[in-house]
């Protein structure tokens, strides 16, 4: 622990002229119909010039509210207490005339959603120059010049043209860079970035983070980076603060928090994260339960109901933020001592040398407390066993019939698509709605899904992966190509003929909030597929109870309505509904991307258990490569409607051959500070081209680092003229690149 000691001594001699932002005992309370809602409780931190502080937490942890309070952007009914000083000047409670001199000038903010952050009726140039004019006595012309300069700084190509355009003419990544340009317009001392890349694709995320770094270098500002993505934090910040239930529960250098967490929640967060950089370990270790309701915060530690090591004192006395570094007496952490590792846990020292798996068991249940979870776990295990027995019996009979026992995990091919094409017409805006073009959402892809296998379809937004999934279920009709299930061609069937087969092919949706009818009880929701397929009501009721058990919910939950459940529980209800008809194939369309990290792990584990026991095949559609690496057996990477690379998970992640796959993998931030900062990067430039007018030849060439950097003129011609075929390079690992070469990236 000598390193930590050194840091402590450094930090105890702070030069306070360097402090740009000082937050002390900041509390925010919102009035609500159910009583006061404490969104932020006694948060204190200090930020020095040039430093980056990461604030991590799940939704509802108060991380955004804290910074909105500092900016004075909260609604008027919010009660803000404590103090926040920017360069020594108190900013809380300032009048509009005074705070508007500070905002945008000394302290600037970047928001989450670039698509809604810019006013649609003004040009981007106007909106940037507006920020300049607000604080500087310069002419409009000078302000516009500055706007142009800023657009160049954040790396927007052709800034002279872009400056005259309206926000809707720019892609999401470019709009976020415009917002960054606005934030740095007056060279502020502090930039607060609130989930700046959450709404963006990974390759664009890498570009925007790059622009953010540029902004920081250029202005010398200190930065607060708020995010739920531990990977982004690992790569871009010096210090981390973990928030939970409105409080800072752990603070310290990024290495301390990532390698030596001293608060069970921080440890749990790290454990529940599927890792791209590690061998697939057996199970994720989710944190049971859900974040606490701020209206009914437990007495004592807010994390106690979810904490496996909680004891009586944890439920009685709320732990303070105490120093946690190596041995000795723990003392209250002082915000000025920025190098000190502090945690709000009564038993921090017990976590020394402990891994997430030691503390959290891989529980599948999504119960409210640890005890309930154990109970539900047991029930779910029993239910699984029962169902598995039935399934085993069935398959044993089948096996006897066929006279051959199945061996290995993946069985025979169950669902295939061949040369699948789907075009959506673009229509003119006139009265006649003439067809004036086509968007090729899916252009000629072939896939095979085997029994008991998870095939992942990955790609960025707009690559056609969800359309492919829907085509495979025949929810929409293809333009050309074939889909067959167990040798039967589905695309020739009528809706009526298709109906009995639908039992075997079921879907789980992305958004657990929109996919459940709010006016139906959970029982009705889960029973609906059985009702449609004419099962009798009594049988269906028994089956609903069994299913709820199976997905880790209590059967008593059946009479409740969806709004009474958390996101993770709702997704479990969605899974129960999909399982109601004993399907063979589940299509999972981004099933965990709307969930918080600690919840996501539980759902992933559940999916794995169900596959194991029920022998399901999964088509797993996702943009999250870490989750895919964890759960999938085989992976197909899509780009602009085509598959660019496919292989087993080990092949694809171990030695990706297509430049796009390589770029995708290298763009995923690793939740490991050292690895993240030292790894090799393959950077993609620009945005995904419009699928209405895809590039000739290889569709990826416009963004390809190889095309731009390595290839000779003659080699490039081939990329421009000849679309690459998906070719097997031996061992079933196929890629569609003329100049593919496998590289090890992890």
């Amino acid at each position, binding site marked *: 622990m000598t390193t930590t000691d050194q840091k402590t001594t450094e930090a105890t001699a702070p030069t306070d002229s360097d402090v740009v932002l000082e937050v002390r005992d900041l509390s925010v309370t919102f009035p609500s119909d159910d009583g006061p809602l404490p969104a932020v409780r006694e948060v204190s931190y200090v930020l020095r010039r040039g430093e980056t502080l990461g604030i991590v937490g799940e939704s509802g942890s108060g991380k955004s509210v804290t910074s909105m309070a500092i900016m004075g952007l909260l609604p008027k009914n919010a009660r803000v207490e404590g103090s926040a000083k920017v360069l020594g000047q108190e900013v809380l409670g300032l009048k509009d005339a005074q705070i508007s001199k500070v905002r945008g000038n000394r302290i600037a903010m970047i928001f989450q959603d670039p698509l809604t952050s810019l006013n649609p009726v003004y040009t981007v140039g106007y909106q940037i120059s507006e920020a300049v004019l607000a604080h500087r006595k310069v002419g409009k012309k000078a302000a516009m010049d500055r706007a142009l300069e800023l657009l160049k700084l954040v790396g927007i190509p052709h800034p002279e043209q872009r400056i005259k355009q309206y926000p809707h003419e720019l892609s999401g990544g470019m709009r976020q860079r415009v917002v960054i340009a606005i934030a740095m*317009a007056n060279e502020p001392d502090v930039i607060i970035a609130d989930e700046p890349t959450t709404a963006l694709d990974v390759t664009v995320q890498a570009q925007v983070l790059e622009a953010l770094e540029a902004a920081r270098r250029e202005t010398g500002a200190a930065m607060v980076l708020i995010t739920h993505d531990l990977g982004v934090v690992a790569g871009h910040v010096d210090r981390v603060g973990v928030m939970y239930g409105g409080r800072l529960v752990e603070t310290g250098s990024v290495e301390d928090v990532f390698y030596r967490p001293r608060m069970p929640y921080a440890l749990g967060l790290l454990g529940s994260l599927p890792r791209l950089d590690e061998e697939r370990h057996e199970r994720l270790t989710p944190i049971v339960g859900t974040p606490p309701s701020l209206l009914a915060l437990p007495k004592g530690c807010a994390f106690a109901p979810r904490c496996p090591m909680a004891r009586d004192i944890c439920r009685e006395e709320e732990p303070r933020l105490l120093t946690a570094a190596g041995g000795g007496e723990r003392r209250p952490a002082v915000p000025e001592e920025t190098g000190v590792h502090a945690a709000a846990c009564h038993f921090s020292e017990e976590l020394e040398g402990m891994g997430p798996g030691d503390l959290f068991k891989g529980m599948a249940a999504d119960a409210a407390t640890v005890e309930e979870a154990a109970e539900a776990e047991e029930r779910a295990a029993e239910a699984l066993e029962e169902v598995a027995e039935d399934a085993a019996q069935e398959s044993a009979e089948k096996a006897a019939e066929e006279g051959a026992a199945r061996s290995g995990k993946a069985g025979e091919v169950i669902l295939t698509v061949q040369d699948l094409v789907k075009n959506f017409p673009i229509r003119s805006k006139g009265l006649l709605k003439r067809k004036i073009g086509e968007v090729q959402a899916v252009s000629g892809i072939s896939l095979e899904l085997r029994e008991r296998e998870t095939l992942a379809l990955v790609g960025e937004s707009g690559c056609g992966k969800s359309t492919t999934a829907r085509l495979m279920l025949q929810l929409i009709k293809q333009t050309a190509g074939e889909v067959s299930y167990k040798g039967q061609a589905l695309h020739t069937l009528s809706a009526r003929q298709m109906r009995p087969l639908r039992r075997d092919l079921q879907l789980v949706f992305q958004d657990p909030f929109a996919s459940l009818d709010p006016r139906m009880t959970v029982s009705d929701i889960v029973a609906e597929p059985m009702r449609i397929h004419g099962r009798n009501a009594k049988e269906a009721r028994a089956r609903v109870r069994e299913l709820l058990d199976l997905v880790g919910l209590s059967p008593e939950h059946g009479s409740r309505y969806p709004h009474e459940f958390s996101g993770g529980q709702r997704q479990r209800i969605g899974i129960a509904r999909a399982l109601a008809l004993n399907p063979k194939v589940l299509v999972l369309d981004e099933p965990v991307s709307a969930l918080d990290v600690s919840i996501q792990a539980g759902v992933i584990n559940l999916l794995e258990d169900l596959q194991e026991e029920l022998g399901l095949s999964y088509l797993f559609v996702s943009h999250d490569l870490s989750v895919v690496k964890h759960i999938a057996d085989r992976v197909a990477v899509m780009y602009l409607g085509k598959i660019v690379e496919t292989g087993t998970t080990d092949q694809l992640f171990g030695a990706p051959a297509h430049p796009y796959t390589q770029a995708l993998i290298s763009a995923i931030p690793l939740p490991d500070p050292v690895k993240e900062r030292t790894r090799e990067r393959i950077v993609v430039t620009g945005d995904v081209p419009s699928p209405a007018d895809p590039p000739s030849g290889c569709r990826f060439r416009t963004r390809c680092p190889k095309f731009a950097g390595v290839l000779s003129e003659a080699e490039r011609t081939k990329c421009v003229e000849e679309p690459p075929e998906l070719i097997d390079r031996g061992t079933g690992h196929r890629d569609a690149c003329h100049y593919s070469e496998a590289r090890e990236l992890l």
Partner: protein
Amino acid sequence: MLVYTVRRVLSSIPILILASVLTFVLIDVSGDPLSDLRMQQPPPDPSVIQLAEERLYLDRSMPERYWLWMTGIGGHGDIGLLQGKFGPSTQSTTYDIGENLMMRLGTTLRLVGAAMVFAFGLAVIAGVVSAMRQYSKLDYSLTFIGFLALAMPVFWFAGIIQQAGVGFNELAGSMVFATIGDGQFQAQGLDFWGQIGNTFKYMTLPTIVLMLTSFASWSRYQRTSMLEVLNSDYVRLARAKGLPNRVVIRRHALRTALIPLTTVVAVGVAGVIDGAILTERVFQWRGLGEFFITAVEKNDSYALMAWLLLSGTMVIVANLIADLLYGVLDPRIRYE
């Protein structure tokens, strides 16, 4: 933008033609223009009826009559929309529909125009104030007034306002507000300031009546749209830039919140014209409302057609203006 305008204008022509066919058929089947004549006691000579039928072209079939009404080919020179003639009237042989219509159009446009301008202006102000002070006493008061105005039928409200005007005049001891007539006769021979005073005197009460319903619904609309914009991310970003509150409200919130209101106002024109008929009736203006009611009473089908065509055109033109304005206000739907 020019191409878009031309296209929008052209595409409104088939709508107008379709509307004219529909109204022509509806009016034709809904009554016999000569029913009064036929019912006369003692019964008039059949030759008189035949003459009247010929004069009104009732001796021809409906499609023929439509064609005639549209083009005037084969008529007696008093019909043919494309020649600017609206057809014979039942009211008298010398009654010129077109001339009457134009005379009254000015009177009505004055009322409709004033009512719309005031309704729009006040609605925007009330909506913005309501939204900025959401859930305050002021907001609740404006909401109450809005719903009260929405709930009141125009004719009834017109009666109340008229009575109030009479009462006020009695109290003041002189005629501050005229409660009867459109004041066009009285305006003759007045100087500029006299004209202004006269206009104020005659127009105040009817304008209040006519604008109130529109004001109520538009202000509710403006409040909702303003609230939505005030909670938007770009207004938050504008604040985060350091713009003072009033600039944020004017430049970022109000400017964008006005866009949806243009459509609502354009669609509302039809309602205002309806209201104008009743208002003119109560205040005894000789405007299009009175023209319409007389035409209905006298079964004057060509006059009715002329009126419907004119009000239909006004609605379509208003929508066209709104569409074009939309293009100006919102760059996302601007056409190249």
